[in-house]
């Protein structure tokens, strides 16, 4: 069973619909007590909005502590969009705020004279093929992005994307923790396929 963390930031419903489409059972967790059943084998941290209030929401609901314990037990987490950013060391959005500290880098505003938010379908350049089997590495696939802040390329970068020449991390991975800056659940059949393969790759 996959647990989708509902901490008041983002559309958990669409993540759940996507999981159901790829025949994965899921449950929406509106409190950390949902972990007590022992049925949850993977957590998804979704999210749209701003980093600081989202981090505060995680803290108020006790998710920051539960997630840290979960992660130190080497259990899988998938962060999507803001959820991926929350897994980083921190973000400069709204003044520097500390994150969950998994991915080794801090999130910053995408620099340069570009239109923000970065909205639309963009490509991912895979740095490794650990997450994408069957030759996805050589294939040009588009995924749906909506964000203004991003993680620069770092030690955990698995895939990058670029906007007006600015390169940032669009896929991050450290152990069984994976982050997508884009929305696989809104990226059509290609996104659903990636979601399915990623969960398998995470051992879920």
């Amino acid at each position, binding site marked *: 069973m996959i647990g989708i963390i509902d901490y008041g930031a983002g559309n958990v419903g669409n993540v759940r619909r996507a999981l159901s489409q790829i025949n994965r059972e899921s449950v929406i967790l509106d409190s950390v007590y949902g972990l007590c059943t022992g049925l949850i084998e993977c957590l998804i941290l979704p999210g749209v909005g701003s980093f600081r209030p989202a981090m505060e929401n995680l803290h108020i609901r006790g998710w920051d502590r539960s997630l840290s314990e979960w992660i130190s037990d080497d259990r899988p987490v998938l962060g999507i969009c803001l959820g991926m950013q929350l897994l980083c060391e921190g973000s400069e959005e709204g003044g520097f705020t500390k994150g969950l500290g998994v991915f080794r880098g801090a999130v910053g505003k995408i620099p340069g004279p570009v239109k923000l*938010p970065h909205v639309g379908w963009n490509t991912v350049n895979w740095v490794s093929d650990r997450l994408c089997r069957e030759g996805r590495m050589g294939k040009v696939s588009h995924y749906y992005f909506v964000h203004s802040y991003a993680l620069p390329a770092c030690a955990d970068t698995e895939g990058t994307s670029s906007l007006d020449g600015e390169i940032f991390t669009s896929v991050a991975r450290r152990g069984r923790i994976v982050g997508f800056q884009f929305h696989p659940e809104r990226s059509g059949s290609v996104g659903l396929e990636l979601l399915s393969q990623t969960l398998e790759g995470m051992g879920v």
Partner: protein
Amino acid sequence: MLTKRIIPCLDVQEGRVVKGVRFRELRDAGDPAALAELYMKEGADELVFLDISASSAGRGTMLEWVETVADRLFIPFTVGGGISSAEQARDIVALGADKISLNTSAVTEPGLISRCAALLGSQAVVLAVDARRKSKSSWEVMIKGGSIETGIDLLSWVEHACSLGCGEILLTSMDSDGTLDGFDTECIEAVSSSVPVPVIASGGAGNTLHFLEAFLAGADAALAASVFHFGTIRIGALKKDLDALSIPVRILEDD
């Protein structure tokens, strides 16, 4: 590379998709969720639904069809038409819509843009604006489906709306809409160069070259209705043509 988006627009009345040329003569075209899925499979990058019954009766149906669309659509969609409070916007997003669009209500109450942005984030707030040309380089904002003049200058309005927190502009030229003679490229260029957010061009698409012109004028996305609904233009073929013309577009892998 970020691609240019192709967006079919569906007008919904009492839960059914209808299409009017110049917002009049309506013709039934079916079930919103079924059509949405069809467009997703054809390669649409996003969908926009405008509930044209929303401002009068039939608003109650919105909550039903938005959810049925969300159940079958795995690409982003925007819902607009008659949204007059941030709570209503939040409810629509909670049902599965990715964005909401505000038009008349944003003009009569600009604070609504800020309230929706605070509640949902700017990325979920699209300002839809209907513009009518006043001179070579100025346009006026029209409201209530393009039927009422406001005397408000288009460029100052879109700049103000961006400062209030809208994350995208859906720009419809009332002069071009329904003509199939091409987008108002001067209007697109003027708006696109005055705002820091993406611009979706709408009104006048009749052939592939019109889309090319809109993108060259600075549009980040182009929206059309009748040419897609009546099959005059097929999205897959349109994207292949645009790709051949060096416009970056997303072409489905199995195409």
